[in-house]
């Protein structure tokens, strides 16, 4: 199958090639630190509309007829560079782009002519640099990659302060979050209030919410592709920050100049240290909570043709509790770990390969003891992944991507163990629940082809498969009682699923500055996360497709109009989408957690659909810049076993969602930034009536998600003041205010008996509705430094 794919691609490539063509190729780097520049545009001044872009490793390749050309290299945030070449043989041309901060004026004049958004076949895709993310005012001054993404149209947050992403009507488990290609399963610290990504260690973030390219798979709704910094290969550099919540430090530098560099970055919170003196001697003494994360990356360039990268991430949240009498204690650690080893190889100046071996894991545990009993809860997921991708720059009209991906998954659902020091007592454990094992494979190929000056298409096919394998014991249940079991041995096939995932997108160029694009993408998802809670929690458990659960499927259609104005200083787009979701999962009615039972047995399946309109308007540069994003959308779910079989609004259905982000450079040293967010309230299920059971008031709930919370809105503001910029030390103060006008946004609404209300039955008083709001107006200050 795979051989056939390569052969046919080769034939296609040959038939499109013309003999008198030569190739110019090379790497594009940032002159200030030697890092690869992702997505830099290379255009040919003499040939309008001809050009290419650098890949994730800064590599580009452009094949042109013999002749003399001026190549213009540009990238957001960096100054342009142009080179004149005599193309009468294949040429290697690597370029370093200077920082734009010294040449700000020039950049504005050049305006980069960056027309990526209009020219490429990519749609529903947004890139954000670490710099842009850091310019957005943040909660407690913690710059946050995922919260920055939530401001984009088509993306919704789960609620106040939550880093969960809901993209175009998809659930929080339907986003493929990649950190240097490694999947990150739980993206939140502190119950999702902060994302696990340290913005200092991040180079680039790409969000794809539709028309997913064939190289991505495994999730239905979106891709968040995060690239870590490579490490400064020119000079030694340290930067960091001291904030109210945490402190950060990043150190990077060359190991062998221009050949090898490293980057190591860490942060840790100190809530535990700050709270400790106040809780001393109280019942809360002995409780502590903190989180930290560490990112590190090494790279080594063997030659122009071979480069190796090794990167890793480790983050953990730790909560500890011990009772004041010392007879009860518990420790709850959870976190992600990833490691990626990558090898870049140039087979020729047209064929680039990257092959990666990736490890990632997410673990949650609770360990404790009381009265001679020790207990332990544990859940986790672990993957080993081998991924290889090829970028084949066939001609200036055709680029082909192909590759494969194999992952071995080990998923440990919630397991519990209780052991006793009393030897006569029997120890309990959830031994009926064992880990599940799965192989996930995919092969893909896609081509980006310029049919004519106006029309360009990107067509791809991904074929994916998943096998649940043993050891596994399948228990056939009837009315909660086992009536048959089947045992599967190690690596014995339990269940196999596979399917094609065709993707196509097309661009029609209306004129130089505007285009119409359309895309259709089919996606499949073999791992699932079902949660009943109002937010994403560390206890959320991923389950694989198995004998009990079928894969999720979706198909999304999107059409958009893209336009640049005033020399590309302004960028605007309108997109509409429709998405169909199959095999969606929810817990059955009345579900409460039961130990030692596979949670899959409590799932019910149904369908979903979502449609909407997204508007985006951005001023890309200048003293005043920023964007406005607006989404109108509707998200529905239809489950035969829920809500009496009637269709209902998804919890995160949101009619209106508006974000305004603006930044203004007041003086050379002072910049002001602000954001404003407005969103329709989340759908919520309220009781219509009440009744008394066992002398307690109970709720008789109405239809699922039958009411709305109040609309959510909030403004944030920040001021960045740069200290004296000496050669040795550059520093800045960031003053920020979260929730500027102190809006009490509803986080949770619940019902409680009022303390002095009217009695409605013996000992029972009238309930009242209460709201919890999380963050009032919250000022914070952060000092950042760089030397």
């Amino acid at each position, binding site marked *: 199958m795979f051989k056939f794919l390569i052969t046919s691609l080769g034939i296609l490539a040959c038939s499109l090639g013309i003999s008198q063509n030569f190739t110019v190729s090379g790497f594009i780097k940032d002159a200030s630190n030697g890092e690869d520049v992702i997505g830099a545009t290379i255009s040919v001044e003499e040939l309008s509309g001809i050009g290419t872009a650098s890949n994730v490793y800064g590599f580009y390749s452009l094949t042109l007829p013999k002749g003399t050309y001026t190549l213009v290299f540009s990238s957001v945030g960096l100054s342009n560079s142009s080179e004149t070449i005599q193309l009468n043989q294949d040429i290697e041309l690597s370029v370093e782009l200077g920082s734009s901060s010294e040449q700000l004026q020039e950049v504005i004049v050049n305006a980069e002519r960056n027309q990526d958004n209009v020219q490429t076949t990519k749609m529903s895709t947004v890139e954000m640099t670490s710099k842009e993310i850091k310019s957005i005012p943040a909660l407690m001054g913690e710059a946050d990659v995922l919260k920055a993404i939530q401001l984009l149209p088509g993306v919704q947050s789960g609620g106040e302060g939550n880093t969960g992403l809901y993209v175009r009507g998809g659930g929080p488990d339907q986003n493929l979050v990649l950190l240097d290609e490694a999947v990150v399963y739980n993206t939140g610290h502190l119950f999702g209030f902060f994302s696990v990504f340290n913005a200092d260690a991040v180079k680039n973030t790409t969000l794809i919410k539709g028309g997913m390219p064939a190289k991505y798979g495994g999730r239905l709704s979106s891709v968040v592709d995060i690239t870590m910094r490579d490490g400064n290969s020119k000079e030694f550099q340290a930067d960091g920050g001291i904030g109210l919540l945490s402190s950060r430090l990043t150190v990077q530098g060359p190991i062998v100049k221009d050949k090898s560099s490293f980057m190591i970055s860490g942060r840790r919170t100190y809530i535990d240290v700050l709270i400790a003196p106040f809780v001393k001697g109280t019942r809360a003494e002995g409780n502590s909570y903190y989180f930290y994360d560490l990112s590190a990356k090494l790279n080594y360039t063997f030659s122009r043709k071979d480069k190796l990268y090794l990167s890793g991430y480790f983050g953990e949240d730790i909560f500890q509790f011990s009772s004041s009498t010392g007879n009860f204690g518990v420790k709850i650690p959870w976190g992600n770990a990833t490691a990626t080893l990558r090898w870049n190889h140039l087979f020729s100046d047209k064929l680039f390969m990257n092959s990666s071996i990736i490890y990632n894991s997410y673990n949650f545990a609770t360990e404790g003891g009381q009265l001679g009993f020790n207990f332990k809860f544990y859940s986790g997921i672990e993957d080993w992944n081998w991924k290889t991708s090829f970028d084949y720059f066939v001609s200036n009209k055709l680029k082909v991507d192909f590759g494969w991906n194999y992952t071995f998954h080990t998923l440990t659902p919630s397991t519990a163990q209780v052991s006793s020091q009393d030897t006569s007592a029997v120890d309990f454990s959830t031994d009926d629940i064992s880990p599940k094992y799965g192989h996930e494979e995919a092969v893909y190929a896609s081509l980006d082809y310029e049919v004519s000056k106006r029309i360009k298409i990107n067509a791809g096919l991904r074929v994916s498969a998943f096998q649940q394998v043993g050891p596994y014991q399948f228990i056939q249940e009837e009315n909660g009682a086992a009536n048959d079991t089947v045992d599967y041995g190690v690596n014995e096939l339990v269940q196999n699923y596979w399917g094609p995932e065709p993707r196509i997108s097309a661009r029609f160029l209306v004129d130089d500055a505007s285009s119409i694009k359309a895309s259709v993408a089919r996606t499949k998802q073999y791992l699932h996360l079902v949660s009943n809670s109002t937010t994403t929690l560390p206890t959320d458990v991923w389950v694989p497709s198995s004998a009990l659960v079928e894969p999720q499927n979706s198909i999304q259609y999107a059409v958009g109009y893209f336009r640049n104005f005033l020399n590309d200083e302004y960028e605007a787009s309108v997109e509409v989408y429709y998405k169909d979701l199959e095999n969606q999962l929810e817990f059955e009615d009345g579900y409460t957690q039961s130990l030692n039972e596979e949670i899959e047995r409590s799932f019910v399946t149904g369908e979903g659909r979502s449609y909407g309109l997204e508007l985006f308007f951005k001023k890309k540069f200048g003293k005043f810049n920023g964007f406005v994003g607006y989404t109108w959308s509707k998200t529905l779910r239809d489950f035969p076993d829920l809500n009496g079989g009637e269709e209902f609004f998804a919890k995160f259905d949101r009619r209106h969602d508006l974000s305004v982000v603006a930044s203004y450079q007041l003086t050379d040293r002072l910049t002001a930034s602000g954001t404003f967010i407005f969103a329709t309230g989340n759908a919520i299920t*309220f009781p219509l009536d009440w009744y008394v059971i066992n002398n307690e008031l109970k709720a008789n709930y109405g239809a699922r998600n039958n009411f709305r919370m109040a609309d959510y809105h909030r403004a944030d503001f920040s001021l960045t003041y740069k200290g004296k910029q000496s050669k040795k030390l550059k520093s800045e103060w960031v003053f920020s205010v979260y929730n500027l006008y102190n809006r009490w946004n509803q986080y949770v609404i*619940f019902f409680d008996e009022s303390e002095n209300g009217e009695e409605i039955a013996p000992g029972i008083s009238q309930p009242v509705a209460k709201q919890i709001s999380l963050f009032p107006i919250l000022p914070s200050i952060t000092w950042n430094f760089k030397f």
Partner: protein
Amino acid sequence: MHFFNKTVSLCILLTLVIACEKEIELDIPGAGESIVVEGAIENGQFPFFSLTTTLSLFDPNFSLDPSNYFISDATATLTTGSGRTVDMDAYCLGDLDSTLAQEIAKQFGITPEAANSICVYSTFELQGELGESYSLSIKTAEGQELSAETTIRQIVPVDSIWTVPEPSNPDSLRVLFAQFMEPEGLGNYYRYFTQTNNEPFYPGLFGSVTDDNIFNGQKVIAPFDKGYARGTEIEFETYGKFTIGDTVSFKLAHMDKAHFDFWRTVEDPGSAGGGLFSTPIQIQSNVNGGLGSFGGYASSVSTIIIE
């Protein structure tokens, strides 16, 4: 997992000391009156149930009439699997001889103070029998019909109970332990109650029910918190513990799945309007035409005096 939910809530409250709570006004139209059954039949005891109406407390047009709250003019019959049918009649405890009223209240797990304002349906012609099935049918004066079916399973005997000193206060407080042999085969469901001195049996406060998934077919030895009447004030320092000198009874009631599902969902915080981390849980009912439950208990009791 209750423990874990509590820990999570505690943790979040600890770290988010800045969170704000306030009352809000909601205007929710009621769904219209439904009828609620709450009752049980236990081996060796008379069957009983109460009949009440739902309350549209957030409907601005709703006005509460306590005399309507208990429905005492319905007719009810209980039929056994072996074909015997008896009528169940309404008794409002306030109208009864106070000793009898207190005895009945005790059976229901109702505090003596609350007993006077409660009406129940019962019969003194029939007591619950192990292994027997029962079907209840009710017809209100307005002609509305409700029915429920349940069984009394076989008892799972409590082998022994004992207490150990509570480490924080070993001089006076005791933790109750019980031991029983859980029968082989999945699908057994339990609810436990404790009785202290002359009080009624009260179910455990945080999760009185469990399935047998975790200890199927094993000898179970575990600590059990003292049970409480719902709606009473609880002291943190003595919660769940017994005192030296108490006469303590432990009741292990074996149930069918429908009866278990009812109490399992009743005891989830989500059934009472939710909270920080709980989602709405609709209480699982085994009553056709109404809400609530009529379920069977196969109970085994063991008693000790703490010295």
